């Protein structure tokens, strides 16, 4: 029974992750194509996706490399884009922090926007699950997101410029995340946090290296925590 339901958690994770194929597919393909266009060998582009495994940071690094920016600037800028991962790590620690170290290492490696968002939504909707179920769900979500990321990168690098840029594919990522935000807005405090973060994100969009995102994220978190205290709404 317990074994059964751990597997069912895994498969529920797979189902939650599958729609992200429509995000990862075009996004990874595009990275592969741009890598080849920038003069990278196929194995170099693939190494980017396997070692770094972070779309936005990879695009940032590739862009700056083609502009011949200094190495340190390339690294610092791409890591700044990835700074939100530290917030994801902190946010998921109350749920997965009790795992053995090597399993936490696995979670950390596969912790990307999509796996984080889908897992956190699950943990919030079903808070009473055991640690094993939560870990199984995470691995389930990761399965249709991360390995396909490598495959489509390879495919894009290989096909190179023979793929025409198709209209609308760029918008798969915003659509996927927008769909997940609504169900997360469970209490007035959640809605206030989201509203404040949107206002700050648009207001600070001019800040270089994507740091406006961090300002907005921190501002939204503070707004949510304050609203929770004042409205007395328990999550």
């Amino acid at each position, binding site marked *: 029974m317990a074994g059964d339901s751990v597997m069912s958690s895994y498969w529920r994770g797979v189902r939650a992750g599958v729609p992200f194929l429509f995000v990862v597919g075009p996004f990874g393909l595009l990275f592969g194509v741009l890598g080849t266009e920038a003069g990278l060998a196929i194995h170099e582009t693939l190494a980017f996706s396997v070692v770094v495994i972070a779309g936005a940071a990879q695009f940032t690094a590739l862009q700056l490399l083609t502009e011949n920016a200094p190495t340190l600037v390339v690294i610092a800028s791409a890591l700044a884009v990835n700074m939100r991962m530290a917030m994801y790590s902190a946010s998921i620690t109350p749920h997965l922090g009790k795992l053995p170290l090597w399993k936490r290492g696995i979670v950390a490696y596969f912790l990307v926007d999509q796996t984080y968002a889908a897992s956190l939504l699950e943990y919030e909707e079903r808070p009473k699950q055991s640690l094993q179920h939560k870990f199984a769900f995470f691995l389930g979500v990761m399965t249709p997101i991360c390995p396909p990321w490598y495959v489509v990168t390879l495919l894009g690098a290989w096909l190179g410029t023979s793929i025409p840029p198709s209209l609308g594919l760029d918008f798969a990522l915003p659509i996927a995340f927008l769909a997940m935000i609504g169900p997360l807005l469970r209490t007035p405090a959640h809605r206030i*946090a989201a509203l404040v973060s949107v206002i700050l994100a648009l207001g600070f969009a001019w800040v270089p290296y994507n740091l406006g995102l961090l300002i907005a994220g921190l501002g939204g978190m503070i707004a949510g925590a304050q609203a929770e205290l004042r409205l007395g709404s328990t999550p």
Partner: protein
Amino acid sequence: MTGTAELWIVIMALGIGSFGLRFAFLGLVGDRDLPEWLLRHLRYTAVAILPALVAPLALWPAATNGEPDPTRLTAAVATFAVGYLTKNVFLAMGIGASVLIGLSALL
């Protein structure tokens, strides 16, 4: 494109740095209990970061060089509205994608 050695330095540094950012709290905090004030803030990480990530992309899409685009904006509003009202992520994605494809074909 710059030299291959530089490329590999960038790839390795980004790999180590990105893993470090992701491992920071999971690995170092682990099973120690976090203070209540911090947990209270972390409860709002997802609803603070995800909208902040999406809002500029929806309003100023890179594909239109940052010009607001009625098709993408309508699809974004429809996706969010369906997700908020029905709490159904897949339905929201499906309707959002349909609106995007439908309007692109019409306009």
